[in-house]
């Protein structure tokens, strides 16, 4: 990923990344933990507030219901007159004036013909009016109270019940209690007592619940109707279910059903009334009448302490990370500085400046060791280069000496080619290609007298300087020994004896000598272990001179014989060393005698010595195809042409 980035970058990146991952993990865990703690705490405190408020509200409802029940008992146990009932209701309401001003009115409504067998309707209604108590008789064709909820509810349910809140200048709710009488041994429904409670105090009581300034509470009836709410428009107009429908909030509907079922709980609340933010709702029932108190608090405000902590931690985290980043970069740069210097120095050394400055490092750490190793390498390199220079100089000297040696060696051989240009009887041409700077092959030709030409070819065992020296000795010997009085066998015998005498190096020479009578074309020859020469007869194919007269010269003090042959005019004698026939190609195949024979035969059309030697050399070169030459190659061709064709 960061192939081209510096070490300092990589190090900083990975360390910082690791630290961030670990820190975020710890941070998340701590935050979750604190949140759950906070939530628990808030839940507990909200539950406490909710339940204590519900209890407080319950008190009034409980007192009102107690009053209703007491009145019912009185009506069950005594048959009061119209006046007595009026007095009772008035007195009761008066007694509540200071303790429970919320109780707005009381009424008693009899079932048809139960108060008076002649009267279908009998109802007395006593209410607070203008600081006093007002009594009214009511009921009739215009007000058939038997069909109203407050009457039918307790009658059909056969127990006391709180009515749903209703609007009567202010929001009210009635506690309605059925009362019964024994008639003919049966308990007969006789009428209904109502205690009517003004609920205006509720709004105040509920609105005093404050949570972190932005929470609010509301109260719903046992069928979900909103009784108190900060948004006055909702009061009595909406139910928690119509609100849920409007918001398309199924959770709120489910919570509402839990509320009217008398359960308590804590649920997410889609929208806070004012802030519209995600909120929570806690709800708990009023025990007296099945109503339910809901408390809404916005999540973010409640958890603002946690949020504050999160911001602080985050800020510290960012600052810490920046500091850490600085330190890491500084350390990384410090650590890698010698490396950078080393890199630069190495570059310089690479480009030839072996004395480039290495960083001075005191520390004995990996970088220090590396630096020392580099310094040692630098010193070794300098030394090596010095040695190399010396060696190269020595080698150059040797090479120069060898070149001189070669020149000297070549100087020993007859240089003027073709020789004897003035001679009409024969033509001659020779080449010697050494495998090394100096070679061990030799060839020679010289007149013994004006009619006789001595021709020699040889191949010293081994190569290089020793072979070349041995060759020089051989060349010097036969030049010194040969004279017209001796035949080729005697000369070779003498040369061999001279060489083998005190021959501690055990070197030897394969040696072929011939003496040509340039007038007659007769040749006498002695072959001491050398490759047999060929004679290309003019117009008569090729002949191999295969006679041998002993081992190579220098091996032992032996006597060598001789043979003779006649060269006819135009015949060509071809001498060569084993460098020709043993030349190897890439497949380790030798050039061979047959291939040589073919090449010489092919030269029949132009049998001049120069052509033959060059053709053979070219064929060998083609055959070896660039392979390194392993042995010296020497070819010598002699054409007998007494009729003056030698110049052709």
């Amino acid at each position: 990923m960061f192939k081209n980035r510096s070490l300092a970058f990589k190090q900083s990146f990975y360390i910082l990344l690791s630290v961030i991952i670990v820190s975020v993990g710890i941070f998340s865990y701590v935050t979750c933990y604190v949140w759950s703690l906070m939530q628990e705490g808030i839940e507990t405190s909200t539950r406490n507030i909710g339940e204590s408020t519900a209890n407080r509200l319950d008190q009034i409802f409980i007192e009102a219901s107690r009053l209703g029940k007491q009145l019912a008992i009185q009506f069950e146990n005594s048959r009061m007159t119209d006046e007595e009932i009026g007095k009772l209701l008035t007195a009761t309401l008066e007694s509540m004036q200071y303790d429970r001003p919320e109780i707005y009115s009381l009424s008693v409504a009899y079932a048809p013909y139960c108060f008076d067998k002649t009267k279908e309707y009998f109802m007395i209604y006593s209410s607070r009016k203008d600081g006093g108590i007002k009594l009214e008789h009511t009921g009739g064709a215009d007000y058939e109270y038997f069909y109203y909820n407050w009457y039918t509810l307790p009658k059909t349910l056969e127990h006391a019940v709180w009515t749903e809140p209703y609007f009567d200048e202010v929001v009210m709710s009635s506690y309605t209690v059925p009362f019964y009488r024994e008639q003919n041994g049966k308990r007969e429904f006789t009428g209904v007592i109502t205690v009517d409670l003004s609920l205006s105090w509720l709004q105040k009581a509920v609105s005093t619940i404050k949570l972190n300034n932005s929470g609010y509470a509301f109260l719903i009836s046992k069928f979900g109707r909103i009784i108190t709410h900060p948004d006055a428009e909702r009061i009595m107009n909406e139910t928690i279910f119509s609100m849920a429908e409007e918001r398309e909030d199924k959770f709120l509907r489910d919570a509402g059903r839990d509320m009217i079922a008398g359960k308590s709980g804590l649920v997410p609340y889609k929208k806070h009334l004012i802030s519209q933010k995600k909120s929570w709702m806690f709800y708990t029932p009023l025990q007296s009448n099945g109503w339910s108190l809901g408390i809404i608090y916005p999540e973010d405000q409640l958890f603002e302490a946690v949020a504050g902590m999160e911001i602080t931690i985050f800020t510290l985290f960012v600052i810490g990370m920046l500091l850490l980043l600085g330190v890491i970069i500084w350390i990384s740069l410090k650590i890698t500085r010698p490396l950078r210097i080393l890199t630069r120095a190495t570059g310089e050394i690479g480009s030839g400046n072996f004395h480039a400055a290495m960083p001075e490092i005191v520390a004995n750490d990996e970088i220090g060791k590396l630096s020392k190793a580099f310094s040692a390498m630098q010193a070794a390199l300098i030394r090596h280069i010095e040695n190399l220079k010396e060696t190269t100089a020595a080698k150059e000297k040797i090479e120069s000496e060898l070149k001189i040696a070669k020149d000297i060696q070549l100087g020993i051989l007859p240089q003027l080619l073709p020789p004897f240009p003035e001679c009409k009887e024969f033509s001659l041409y020779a080449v010697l290609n050494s495998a090394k700077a100096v070679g061990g092959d030799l060839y020679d030709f010289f007149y013994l007298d004006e009619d006789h030409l001595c021709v020699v070819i040889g191949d010293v065992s081994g190569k290089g300087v020793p072979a070349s020296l041995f060759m020089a000795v051989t060349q010097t010997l036969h030049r010194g020994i040969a004279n017209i009085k001796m035949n080729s066998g005697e000369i070779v015998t003498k040369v061999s004896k001279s060489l083998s005498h005190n021959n501690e190096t055990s070197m030897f020479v394969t040696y072929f000598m011939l003496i040509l009578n340039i007038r007659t074309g007769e040749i006498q020859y002695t072959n001491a272990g050398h490759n047999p020469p060929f004679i290309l007869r003019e117009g008569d194919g090729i002949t191999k001179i295969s006679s041998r007269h002993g081992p190579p010269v220098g091996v032992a003090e032996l006597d060598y014989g001789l043979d003779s042959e006649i060269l006819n005019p135009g015949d060509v004698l071809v001498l060569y060393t084993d460098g020709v026939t043993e030349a190897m190609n890439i497949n380790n195949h030798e050039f061979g005698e047959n291939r040589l024979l073919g090449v010489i035969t092919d030269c029949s059309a132009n049998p001049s010595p120069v052509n033959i030697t060059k053709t053979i050399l070219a064929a060998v070169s083609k055959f070896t195809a660039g392979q390194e030459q392993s042995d010296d190659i020497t070819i010598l061709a002699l054409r007998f042409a007494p009729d003056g064709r030698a110049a052709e």
Partner: protein
Amino acid sequence: MKLQIHRTFFALPLIIISAFLFSTAFAQDQEVKAAPALTKVVFTPQWFPQAQFAGYYMAQELGIYNKCGLDVVFQYKPPQRTLISVLTDKNADFVTDFLSSGIKMRSNGMKVVNIGQISQRSALVFVARKSSGIKKLEDINGKKVGIWMTDFQEVPKALLEKHKIKAEIIPVVSGIELFLCRGIDVIAVMWYNEYHELLSSGINEDEITTFFFNDYNLDIPEDGIYCLRETYEKNPEMCRNFVKASLEGWQEAFKNKKRTLEIIRKYCRENHIPYNNAHQSWMLNRMEELISPSGGKYVAGFLSPKMYLDTAKKLKSTGVIKTIPPYNEFYKNVLNGNTVPGKDENISGKDENVQK
């Protein structure tokens, strides 16, 4: 405990303000200076602003009444006052009322005529809790059934009688509280109104069994437009224009419900009536199904002879009326000729529909 208790749960505060509204309406009357070409008419719906009357508010707000040469003033009556008295006292030119109430008025000799039958279906429905074991109509046997003490209370009774169901009838003045408290097992409610109040009181639809009256051959449609016969005879053009514009208003109401609800909210505000969007939205959708069963595109506003006779016969057989007034005397097709608009099967009395 206030002695005056009204019918609708949601409109409890209205009782206090109704008298005020009624008196101020006249004051408003005098302030409104109609353009010279416009005929001023007073219209009184059964109840305070709500989606049940959406079409009339749309006709007013979109200027359809004005376009038809009318300057319409909306005027509300106190709940305890009957619509017939509003007409006979000439406090209004046009009122809306249930078809059963209209037939009853006419049968009792009141000189009123129906000039437009807006509702085409009955919205009455019996609702029972599944938990009370009521799954089919026969299960109501022996149960307590709450029925409101109104002009049409005979219709639910007739349904029970027709199916030979013996149930304890509990007369209810208003509301659904008795049902919510389980004081009764079954309650007859209006689909567009109290049915939704049940849902808004925490009852889920899958918890109740419903018996729609129109599924039991008791399809008595409700809201229609009424006026005095005298008014009709004196000014048939005005009646025609009012019905025509109102029908157009209804079509507009269903076309753009969001706008309609905004207008209803506006009327509620103006009349100090609390507005409950969920409830009004429900009501508007249900009114569409009742008024335009074809799917809101077409509002017939027509009372076919068959619909009339079926309803009248049912009322007679249940003892609500003694005699059936002649169709042509009860219903005046003011749209004159555009009588049989088409797909509604109930409108099958085309041939007998002899108009003046």
